[in-house]
């Protein structure tokens, strides 16, 4: 009986675990009945209604590939300890670089599973070397640090909300970071007369999915803080698919024959920010970065009040 009772308990526990597992897996990722795909409500004009404020919830802006947690974005090897028997180490320990040391745990990098399909970015060999160099010189090179426009797709998964505003022939994507706005042209539009940071965006509907074809980029933006980059031959095709009243699935296919050997794809859910009266607020970061960019260049450094040498 005791044995029987115990195995009954185990069976019950296993069954409960299965139930919990089923319920749990039913919660993530965004639910969709297997038979009938979600159909988005329509705007007054009859298009799928994607209006709202959206935000990603992941660590892709740190690194779009899978990554372990680490002490800081900028690391420097600790100087070797020599001359003390029993304290010398085979490999140096990576410590936060002096410029970011004071930030402590706030400056650490949270781990993440990555958003790249197959977790592989197909860099050409020369480009792979540049990516590595970018990562090593993150502090000097990441355009985010300088408050430059973040480019596409990075704008989508920065840790700020963005708003989709569906006009008649135009959809605006209004980003908080650096006050950037993208105009998605739903009508014909001529090519951009020059290269751009945020690209020229042409949109169309594929069922409920907003497909945006983005071209005319410059080579100045990155994909993340890990140094992943592209050239001015970048071509991005984005897909925004409503999968529930509160979720969009976002997918971007990235093509750049100067940097990658084949197209590759990232994907992630976007979550609706449905707090009452939620707005995209200002993040005018130019005035936040001027001291770092220009403080040392003038006659006087306002940060120290001293004359520059």
């Amino acid at each position, binding site marked *: 009986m005791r044995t029987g009772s115990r195995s009954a308990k185990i069976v019950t526990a296993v069954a409960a675990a299965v139930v919990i597992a089923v319920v749990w897996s039913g919660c993530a990722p965004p639910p969709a009945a297997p038979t009938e795909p979600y159909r988005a409500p329509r705007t007054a004009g009859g298009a799928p209604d994607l209006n709202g404020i959206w935000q990603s919830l992941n660590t892709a802006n740190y690194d779009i590939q899978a990554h372990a947690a680490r002490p800081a974005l900028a690391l420097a090897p600790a100087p070797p300890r020599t001359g003390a028997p029993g304290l010398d180490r085979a490999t140096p320990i990576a410590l936060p670089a002096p410029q970011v040391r004071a930030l402590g745990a706030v400056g650490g990098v949270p781990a993440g599973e990555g958003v790249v399909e197959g977790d592989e970015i197909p860099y050409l060999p020369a480009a792979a070397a540049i990516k590595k160099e970018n990562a090593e010189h993150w502090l000097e090179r990441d355009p985010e640090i300088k408050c430059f426009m973040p480019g596409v797709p990075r704008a989508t998964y920065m840790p700020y909300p963005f708003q989709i505003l569906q006009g*008649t022939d135009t959809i*605006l994507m209004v980003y908080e970071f650096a006050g950037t706005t993208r105009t998605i042209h739903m009508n014909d539009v001529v090519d*951009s007369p020059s290269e751009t940071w945020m690209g020229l965006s042409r949109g169309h509907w594929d069922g409920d999915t907003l497909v945006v074809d983005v071209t005319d980029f410059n080579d100045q933006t990155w994909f993340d803080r890990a140094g992943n980059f592209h050239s001015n031959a970048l071509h991005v095709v984005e897909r925004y698919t409503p999968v529930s009243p509160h979720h969009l699935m976002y997918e971007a296919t990235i093509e750049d024959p100067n940097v990658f050997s084949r197209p590759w794809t990232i994907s992630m859910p976007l979550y609706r920010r449905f707090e009452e009266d939620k707005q995209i607020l200002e993040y005018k970061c130019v005035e936040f970065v001027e001291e770092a960019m220009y403080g040392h260049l003038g006659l006087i450094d306002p940060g120290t009040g001293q004359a520059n040498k």
Partner: protein
Amino acid sequence: MSYRHIVAAGTLAAASVIAAFALGSAAAQDSEGGPAPEAGAWSQSRTAWGDPDFQGVWRYEADIPLERPSQLEGRELLTDEEVAQREEIEADQQAKRLEGFEGGAVGRLSIAESPIRGNEYNSFWQDHGRPRQVYKQTSLIVDPRDGQIPYTPDARKAAARSTARYGVGPFESYLDPDTGERCLTDGVTAMMWQGPNGGHNQFVQSPGFVTILHEEFRDRRVIPVDGRAHGNIRQWFGDAVGHWEGDTLVVDTTNFLDRTNYEWASIWTRPSETLHLVERFTRISADMMDYQITIEDPTTFSGAWTAVIPISRLADDTQIYEYACHEGNYAMPNLLSGARADAAKKSASPR
């Protein structure tokens, strides 16, 4: 009693007369300069959910100075002869611009009163692309009736100081150029009527929001028109809430950040915590919008002032281009290194 005093006595009545005039004048000329459309030919177009439809790209194309020039003191309107004369000048300037003649520049105030010294370099920033529209109105400011910004005595000094510094310096650090040169903004107050240099304003409407995307500095306003109250967060562009009064969009903006300690090319565009804007947007024809703005700020002005501004709609395929100012601000390091070179030269030269 001088004429000015008589004028002051009837300020409010006059403001509405001028406003009505501006509407009539704008409606009577289409953007091609051709004959006015048949009366009643245009009716207010509406969005799918029934609001007046302002969507498209709009720009201030009139030749009216913000403040009334001193030579027109006491006169609210030009004569027909003066209008004809100005139209001739505009046509002549346009021809010269098309031939590549530099120096036909127009600053934000007027040709004679451009704040930019040595217009030659700067004239390309100011290319209107087509002749400006000539109006009888002698100043955008209709209230007070003298057509002048009612600065407080302190603000008048600050304005004179900023005019004297603009383009001249000293520039000891990045804090010394004006907010425009720092690629921050020229201020929300002037956004709608800034003119040719990136003065395009794209209106996009979606249920509950009217969004205005301004080209220069990629300034942007997402204005809720869903009945919400003001929030409590201070911003450069404040906290705008809109509502419809008939076919007029009324936008009330408060909660500005205090940025009076930055340098401004024109201090009347600077935000302070006491700044309050009330704007009225009315589409009056296919091509024209009547825009009125009332500006109140005891930090800078002795009383509220109102400007009445005709805004033109541009062709359907007009695009707002990306404005990457800070991203390409080579002027800032060059300005600072120039100031250092000047200082080095001065200290090296014998006295």
